[in-house]
């Protein structure tokens, strides 16, 4: 990372020199664009908070339904992320560093859930793991049903979030200088030792960035969850589903839940940034 950062900053300096003609119009436009985008993103978020304060809907945040939904979201996204890190890290390493037949096809496959609408993902999961699904039919023989369970929520989250982790991790592994690892091998470390002591630490910032993106995607997951896992408080009703369910009954509760998930996501993001900041 240090090497890469230095290269980047050198490049940046070179870029500045090139544009030192002072293209003020271009920079003015860029500033305007940034202001517009920042305003567009902050205004709705601000509106959520204004509503919560003015309608005094704080109380809805402490409702049992809100607590259940928040707890379920924490639990499922935590499990999903753990699964993604355990499976996704070695998978990304293979995809990035080993040139095997079918590598490109697998790379493309890994990206598929990003472009697939979540509702389509939900239907697909249902047709695979539902009671009459391709696999579900056999699972059912053994008395295993997945739909309407918390397991189904985790499956939906892993499905939609996997590409975000795997893609970032693979980029991290691919950008690494293989010479450093080879030096480790020359110095007598085993392959596993090199992976854990050199490769992983070097790729760490990319892994953290990927994990954060994947977690955020899992937290926001709605379409695949409601279609594949169903909607029941405490079992499959994560925060996004609870917001949707409340939208037609109790707008205050829907707003309060939105603020709650906003605060939760923001806290996690800041904590991760703080813990992994470059010292």
């Amino acid at each position, binding site marked *: 990372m240090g090497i890469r950062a230095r290269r980047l900053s050198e*490049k940046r300096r070179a870029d500045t020199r090139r544009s030192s003609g002072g293209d003020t119009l271009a920079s003015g436009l860029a500033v305007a664009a940034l202001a517009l985008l920042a305003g567009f993103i902050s205004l709705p978020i601000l509106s959520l908070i204004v509503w919560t304060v003015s309608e005094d809907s704080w109380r809805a945040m402490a409702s049992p339904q809100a607590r259940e939904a928040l707890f379920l979201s924490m639990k499922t996204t935590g499990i999903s992320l753990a699964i993604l890190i355990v499976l996704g890290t070695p998978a990304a390493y293979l995809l990035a560093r080993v040139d095997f037949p079918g590598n490109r096809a697998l790379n493309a496959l890994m990206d598929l859930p990003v472009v697939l609408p979540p509702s389509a993902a939900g239907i697909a999961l*249902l047709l695979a793991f*539902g*009671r*009459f699904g391709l696999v579900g039919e056999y699972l059912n023989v053994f008395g295993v*049903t997945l*739909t*309407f369970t918390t397991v189904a929520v985790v499956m939906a989250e892993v499905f939609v979030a996997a590409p975000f982790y795997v893609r970032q991790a693979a980029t991290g592994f691919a950008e690494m200088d293989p010479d450093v690892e080879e030096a480790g091998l020359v110095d007598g470390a085993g392959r596993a030792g090199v992976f854990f002591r050199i490769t992983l630490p070097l790729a760490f910032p990319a892994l953290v960035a990927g994990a954060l993106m994947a977690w955020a995607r899992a937290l926001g997951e709605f379409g695949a969850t409601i279609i594949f896992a*169903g*909607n*029941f408080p405490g*079992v*499959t009703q994560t925060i996004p589903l609870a917001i949707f*369910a409340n*939208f*037609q*009954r109790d707008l205050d509760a829907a707003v309060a839940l939105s603020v709650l998930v906003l605060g939760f996501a923001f806290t996690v993001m800041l904590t991760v940034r703080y813990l992994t900041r470059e010292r």
Partner: protein
Amino acid sequence: MSFTCSRLIFSVLLLALLTNLSACGGSGEASDKTERKATLTVLAASSLTDAFGELADTFERENPGVEVKASYESSSTLLAQMQQGAPADVFAAADEAKMKAAVEENLVDGEPETFAKNREVIMVPKDNPASIEEFRDVAKPGVKLVLAEDEVPVAEYAKEILGKANEEYGGGFEEAVMSNIVSREADVRASVNRVALGDADATFGYTSDYTPILRDKVESVTIPADLNTIATYPIAQLKEANDPELARKWLDLVTSEKGQEVLERWGFEPAA
């Protein structure tokens, strides 16, 4: 770096071009049909999907140049949409409570009319994995029951039925049934589809949801008449109607003999 940059710009331009092309195609198509001058927007309870679909075809045939745009969702969703200003000409609800709320919110023009009635049944998958032979069986432990969300008419009627059943069967019947629920669905059609796909063991639906297309996937189990509730469907034209005359014509069609015949064919009972 600059290579990827130019590639990115190229893809963006390509995307813009494609969007433009499709937009052009769209407008060309629209100009071909300039004679299509009026649109009637109907908001209808999801149980009306098939009957109103057929009536929409009839209406378009009888009124050349008019296009019927119908949105089928739970009456509670439609009510929420209207409260937030969704533009529409007609509202057809599956219970009187939602129509009453619409009247109280000053959304309705004139008096709502009852145009159909319906009855609830229990829907189970064809292979009936939980072996539900009669209504009482939905209280058996382990039955995977799905029900529409609170406020959705089919769920409100179901709760009424369960209240009556509790008095008759006693022994926490209602509680036993409610504790069998594994998922709350957006509307009655979504609940019935859960059964059709086989993931749920049972749901509350209407007799009109036992459509020909579902008959090879689901079975219906009757709810005893003394426990059942008659679902009442009111219809009204809306204050914000774009074309009150067309809205009136739709109401006339739905309440006409022809309209009632179509509704009856789709499993509804006559209003009167």
